[in-house]
């Protein structure tokens, strides 16, 4: 008897019209919609980055005007933070995998999930409109009173775009929390959840609690800019530092919105490649929650030289060291997981190891910035730029791409070219380091960030950085090629091409619309029940 004839169609085969995609309630299709949109924004932000590296290849401002340069780095920041990094893992991999991993047929609120995507697209349209009309030059941080009273660019349009996309985050967070609480399959207790699900839980909490503060702050900017209500501008009786407190109260937790999901992804990648239980599962869970909670208490480390008091500097410094502890624990646990493993070095593992290395360097340099006395010299220089790119691009983007490679067979049912994928991962690692490591040196030597022109002594370091960006850009383009190739020519994957554990590998690749033909059950072996070899 042929089972396949009675099997439900895969989610990809279940309707092929545009309508069946744009009005879908299937979390997997919504994940694909997000993936297409954020890929578009990633390359848009990448073009802005390439233009900046082109300008900075020489000390003089010879490629574009200062005003255009300022608009370029602002656009790069706004697009990469709100339209790529924040939605990247949660809205694509999270949407696709969360219900599969807990054995559910969908998220708790499928219509709300689709609505979140439309909100994201609406926010994106405002941002693109702003670009087409001439851009905005405040930096992604919108510091007042420059943004409210002095900038002559399209601040309001951008602020509205970010305001809208913020609600997309909030609703996604809400949806995930309810899904995890109410839709776990039989036997899926809290401490049997895969770490990726835990990271989605942590990140959803942060999205729901922090993003409203951003929305409020942006609304206040609009009020001051439109109606001259004195909130942030001292000339109107306001306080510019108040803005920075509000902004970083959101934007520091937002850093964890970007990096927590990547930690979850990497835990899955490593355990599957090593075929071994994660070392210290409970400590990995506690560290996710610890980061999510303490992450709310460290915003003032962005303001050590902004004019806050000496004592505030001391308090925020020690809290920033505290939040680094759980991250260190995670790095040690990933390393320990390799011990006595059965280690394969496929593309996902190369991405995961690349993540651990780059994240570690980003984290360690974060300690330099948490040490308030050192921060005085280093803040607002390229040292900070390099530091957060190690976390955001070296960390979050590497993990995102590693995750895409790992779950690609599940998402599409096809296998890509392993050789090309490894080559791209290694090229990306090298290109990344060549781009951003020189920026640590430039920053330690005192090169300020957001400089269109710079003194000639920083020339060599910037040439290296620009050269690295060419490698990095090529490495980002490669996957488009071999992924598209695999869609047509790739081998069929089968349910579990990696020999990985986890409920998502128990169903077909690609999964049917409602994920499982019968609800899966989970036993006491937990999420990483790899048999000893």
């Amino acid at each position: 008897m042929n089972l396949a004839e009675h099997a439900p169609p895969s989610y990809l085969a279940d309707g092929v019209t545009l309508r069946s995609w744009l009005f879908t309630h299937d979390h997997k299709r919504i994940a694909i919609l997000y993936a297409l949109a954020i890929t578009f924004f990633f390359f848009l932000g990448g073009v802005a980055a390439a233009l900046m590296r082109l300008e900075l290849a020489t000390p003089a401002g010879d490629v574009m005007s200062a005003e255009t340069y300022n608009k370029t780095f602002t656009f790069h920041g706004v697009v990469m933070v709100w339209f790529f990094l924040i939605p990247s893992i949660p809205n694509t991999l999270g949407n696709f995998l969360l219900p599969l991993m807990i054995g559910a047929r969908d998220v708790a609120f499928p219509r709300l999930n689709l609505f979140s995507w439309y909100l994201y697209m609406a926010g994106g349209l405002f941002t693109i409109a702003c670009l087409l009309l001439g851009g905005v030059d405040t930096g992604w941080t919108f510091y007042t009173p420059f943004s409210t009273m002095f900038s002559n660019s399209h601040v309001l349009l951008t602020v509205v775009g970010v305001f809208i996309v913020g609600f997309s985050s909030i609703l996604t967070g809400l949806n995930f929390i309810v899904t995890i609480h109410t839709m776990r399959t039989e036997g899926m207790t809290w401490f049997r959840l895969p770490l990726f699900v835990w990271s989605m839980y942590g990140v959803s909490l942060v999205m729901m609690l922090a993003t409203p503060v951003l929305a409020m702050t942006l609304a206040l900017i609009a009020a001051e800019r439109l109606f001259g209500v004195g909130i942030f501008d001292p000339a109107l009786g306001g306080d510019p530092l108040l803005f920075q407190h509000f902004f970083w109260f959101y934007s520091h937790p937002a850093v964890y919105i970007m990096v927590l999901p990547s930690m979850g992804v990497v835990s899955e990648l490593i355990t599957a490649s090593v075929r071994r239980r994660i070392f210290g599962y409970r400590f990995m869970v506690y560290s996710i929650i610890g980061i999510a909670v303490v992450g709310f208490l460290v915003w003032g480390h962005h303001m050590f030289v902004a004019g806050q008091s000496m004592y505030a500097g001391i308090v925020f410094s020690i809290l920033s060291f505290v939040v680094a502890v759980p991250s260190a624990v995670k790095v040690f646990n990933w390393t320990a997981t390799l011990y006595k493993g059965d280690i394969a070095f496929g593309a996902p593992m190369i991405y995961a190891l690349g993540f651990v290395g780059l994240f570690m360097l980003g984290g360690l340099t974060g300690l330099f910035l948490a040490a308030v006395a050192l921060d005085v010299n280093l803040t607002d220089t390229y040292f900070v730029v390099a530091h957060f790119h190690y976390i955001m691009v070296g960390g979050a983007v590497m993990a995102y791409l590693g995750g895409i490679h790992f779950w690609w067979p599940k998402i599409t049912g096809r296998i890509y070219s392993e050789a090309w994928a490894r080559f791209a991962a290694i090229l990306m690692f090298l290109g990344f380091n060549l781009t951003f490591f020189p920026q640590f040196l430039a920053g330690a030597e005192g090169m300020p960030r957001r400089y269109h022109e710079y003194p000639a002594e920083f020339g060599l370091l910037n040439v290296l950085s620009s050269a690295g960006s060419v490698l990095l850009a090529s490495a980002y383009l490669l996957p488009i090629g071999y992924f598209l190739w695999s869609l047509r020519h790739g081998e069929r994957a089968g349910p579990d091409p990696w020999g990985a554990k986890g409920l998502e590998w128990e169903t077909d690749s690609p999964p049917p619309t409602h994920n499982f033909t019968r609800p899966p059950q989970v036993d006491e072996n937990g999420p990483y029940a790899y048999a000893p070899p």
Partner: protein
Amino acid sequence: MSFLPRASTFAGHLDAMFYTMVGLSAVVVLGVFITMLVFAVRFRRGRHVDRSGESHREMGIELAWTLVPFALFVGIFAWSIVLWVDMRTPPSDAATVYVVGKQWMWEFEHPGGQREIDTLHVASGQPVRLVMTSQDVIHDVFVPAFRVKQDVLPGRYTDLWFIPTRTGTYDLFCAEFCGTDHSRMRGTVVVETPADHARWLATHASASLAARGKLLFTRFGCAGCHDPVSAVHAPRLDGLYGSTVPLADGRQVVADERYLHDAIVLPASEVAAGYEPVMPSYKDRIGESDILALVAYLKIRGQDRETSHEPR
């Protein structure tokens, strides 16, 4: 490869800490990297090696690598705080220079009335305290060779201090994004020997900042109310600077530069106890550099009669 000079007393201490942390980081990175490499080779797929057994000391291992980093972090924190408190505490004998940032230039005013644009002359070995404000958006004074940086805000005074140790000229950058020509808002700090600096001050002296402030005090009609013989009931200003002022709302504030500045532009916010809030705001009528001159004048007003308090 470093080309950044150490030109202040902070630079050596901060660099020592910086390079210590570079060393510690290198140890951690190498440790993790070598461990990974050993595991990766030893336990690679297809190699026959004993993989049996689970660790029974998980709890101890986890606690160890939670607590050891934390203890290390506390040590680094303590070291940095010692330096930080020093960096935030100017000595009482520091020479004050007033700084006004505006899109996109720096204005420096010495107490002797010497005014400079985008260049600051200081003497080596002498502590200098910069008292800074902005005419428009947020700027930031950053002198990498001194390892000092401080945002310059509109509507309030911030300060930083340093002791230059090496003569020479050093870059001064604006380090807070302030609009179109942010990257051109650069200046130079000229560190001279004390003798050269004294000569420079003498040749560039004009009416002192306080003398200019005294003229402004008259021109803006401040004396009309604040003169002791005035009919208006207004606070007397002799010897005010550095004293403690009881406010109408019950608080007490020290009459420092910030207080004097705010009393001129936002007189209603901190009304001295016993006085009616009748003073008009001079917010849009006096530029920041003139306010600095007025503050400089208020700081010395009454000193010839009351020498009781020390200028900071």
